[in-house]
């Protein structure tokens, strides 16, 4: 087994490194630190960032891939999350089964072993072991509780130092400088849920199985990576384009400005979905004619995800660019920029040191604001047929399949419900956080 990073894995880890570096730089500046304090002073911001961290954790676990070189495994590529869920990957059921069920959801015709006549039976599931659901739940919840409390205690000890007792008391009564009590509560609930579901997944299908007998919980967990990646990596493409072109247009003005304005007006006048659809259609043609670019289906779908992210990025930088251009125009007239010019500071230095730092609030607002929109867009694009690869786990693909299941009688509701809950939590958390970020950073809304 050896480490085998896909293209998107590499980009994700670059992004993580960039965020870490940015965070470290921010912590050095007392002003920025205070702004972050103000953002997280709200309970909603604290709670939603804990939720987001959980999602990010799953996405990162799913972004470390290994290639199994043992001949028995046939060189398949698996992630850390796959390995943790290998008990679900190794067994596949035949068809639908409800959450926690021990038998299949639809009757099958089999020949009766005694009389030899065909009879209709609910067949038992392969993966389900005879066990007491209640007993196992208690074990799961117990382990989860221990884990959560242990981690919370560790954090309290780390933050409180030697005076951790009085610090713990402050947290308990809600007197700490930041609403840590809320954060710990959310953390405990989520840890309990995750551990409980994980423990239960060893003996049954917690969220049921889909049409071909795949575990729905596994599919929903694997979809996290797709959603989070589309939401975050797109900004990796958008930001450089928007910042570079926006600042250049606002600072240089003249023909540079005209050209850049023409560029983004043209791009933004094409309806978004259609431009993305056109881009993805062409990408399919290119990928079909270059089969040597990928060795396996997982690499193929990964490449397609990468292209989709690039297409989304190239089509969605115009709004931010327009805003940055307007703000740069305003800042460039300010006294301190004029003074810097008079002192003979070079153009690039003025842009880097005096203009870009003052655009940070707009950039940050747009990053968090775009995230939830992109996660939602993935579902719609997959439905339209221009989203991620159909073989890839994603909420959009799950909804797409579940759409037909709702027409069945009796209804197969768990796939749709699972993707709904997973998506809703992520998008709601992102929306709440972006609201708070906007409230603190946007000078117009702070008034």
């Amino acid at each position, binding site marked *: 087994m050896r480490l085998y990073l896909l293209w998107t894995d590499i980009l994700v880890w670059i992004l993580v490194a960039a965020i870490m570096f940015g965070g470290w730089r921010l912590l050095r500046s007392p002003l920025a630190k205070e702004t972050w304090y103000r953002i997280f002073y709200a309970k909603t911001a604290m709670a939603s960032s804990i939720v987001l961290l959980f999602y990010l954790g799953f996405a990162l676990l799913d972004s470390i891939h290994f290639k199994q070189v043992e001949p028995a495994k046939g060189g398949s590529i698996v992630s850390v999350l796959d390995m943790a869920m290998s008990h679900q990957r190794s067994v596949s059921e035949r068809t639908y089964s409800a959450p926690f069920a021990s038998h299949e959801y639809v009757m099958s015709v089999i020949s009766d072993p005694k009389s030899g006549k065909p009879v209709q039976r609910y067949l038992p599931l392969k993966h389900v072991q005879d066990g007491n659901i209640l007993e196992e739940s208690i074990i799961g919840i117990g382990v989860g509780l221990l884990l959560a409390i242990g981690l919370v205690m560790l954090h309290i000890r780390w933050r409180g130092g030697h005076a951790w007792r009085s610090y713990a008391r402050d947290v308990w009564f809600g007197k700490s400088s930041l609403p840590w009590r809320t954060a710990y509560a959310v953390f405990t609930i989520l840890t309990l849920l995750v551990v409980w579901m994980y423990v239960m997944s060893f003996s049954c299908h917690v969220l049921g199985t889909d049409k071909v007998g795949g575990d729905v919980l596994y599919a929903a967990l694997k979809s996290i990576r797709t959603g989070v990646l589309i939401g975050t990596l797109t900004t990796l493409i958008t930001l450089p384009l928007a910042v570079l072109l926006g600042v250049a247009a606002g600072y240089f003005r003249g023909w540079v400005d005209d050209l850049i304005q*023409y*560029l983004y*007006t*043209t*791009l933004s*006048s*094409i*309806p978004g*979905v*259609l*431009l993305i*659809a*056109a*881009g993805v*259609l*062409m990408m*399919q*043609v*290119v990928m079909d*004619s270059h089969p040597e670019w990928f060795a396996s289906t997982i690499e193929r779908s990964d490449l397609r995800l990468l292209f989709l992210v690039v297409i989304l990025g190239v089509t969605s930088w115009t709004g931010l660019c327009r805003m940055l251009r307007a703000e740069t125009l305003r800042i460039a007239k300010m006294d301190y920029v004029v003074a810097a010019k008079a002192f003979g500071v070079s153009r690039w230095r003025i842009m880097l040191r005096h203009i870009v730092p003052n655009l940070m609030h707009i950039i940050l607002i747009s990053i968090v604001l775009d995230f*939830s929109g992109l996660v*939602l867009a993935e*579902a*719609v694009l997959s*439905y*339209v*047929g*221009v989203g991620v690869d159909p073989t890839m786990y994603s*909420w959009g693909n799950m*909804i797409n399949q*579940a*759409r037909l299941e*709702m*027409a069945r009688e009796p*209804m197969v509701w768990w796939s*749709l419900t699972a993707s*709904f809950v997973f*998506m*809703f939590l992520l*998008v*709601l958390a992102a*929306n*709440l956080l972006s*609201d708070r970020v906007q409230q603190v950073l946007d000078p*117009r*809304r702070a*008034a």
Partner: protein
Amino acid sequence: MLTYIFRRILYAIPILIGVNLITFMLFFVVNTPDDMARAQLGAKQTTPEMIQAWKAEKGYDKPLFYNSDAEGIEHVTDTLFVRESLKLFMFDFGVSDANRNIAEDIKARMGPSLSIALPTFLIALITNISLALLLVLFRGSVFDLSMMIAAVMIMSVSGLFYIIAGQVLFSKMWHWVPISGYESGWESIRFILLPVAIGVFSGLGSGVRWYRSIFLEQITQDYVRTARAKGLSEIAVLFRHVLPNGMLPILTGVVVIIPSLFMGSLVMESFFGIPGLGSYTIDAINAQDFAIVKAMVFLGSVLYIAGLILTDLSYTLFDPRVTL
């Protein structure tokens, strides 16, 4: 006024040429006519002669940007790019892979698209604005707060879920309206009801929040304080002062959409089986019919630019400071 409109239309031409260039790059440079011919004729047993014949039949046998065989100005004009662009500017979209006239199809499908999009747009506009005004009237109260929480929740659900949930509840379980389909004339109301309701509801969250923030921005202005000082009631302040002054930012965001209503909604139409332009596009994407996608991209851009021009014109109606 007329000269202004004329000038704006002239400004639109370079943008449309740019749009054409982008679509041309996507559809002809990335996917060359040779590739298209191979895809159309089937990968096996295609001789170069067959490809040439197919290209000649479709008129794709010219060079892309520069024709070295031609004379004078025709170096540039007798090329695939100029020919294809001119056709689009004439609204001649050619024929689809199924050998149907695309322009005719588009004309026939605009009606059904509009019959969903227009009511959704109007009803959403009215409900969003009235709800936002109500929230501003009770700003800071528990009602306001709980509605804002509800708005964030509504925003956080993917539109696909509203459609699926609506179809299951209202059509499958309660049998109030048919699940999908379309008829022309007044009969169509049965089919339109559910998509319109879902369209209005799914846009409620973001819509109400946006209008509320516009009105709240107005309510801190001096003229509102003056109006209150005159002894006007809060309702009179809202309707006579805040609403008209809020119209300007509202117009900026709303008028630009109006022409694009013709394009319909991709997801809504395909879920409800409405034979409009949205489902037309989705079918074309799934069938990889590039001619239709190309036509829709061009049409969408034309309608968007028309929306921008309309926005500027609407300022002259609502803002006395703006004259053209």
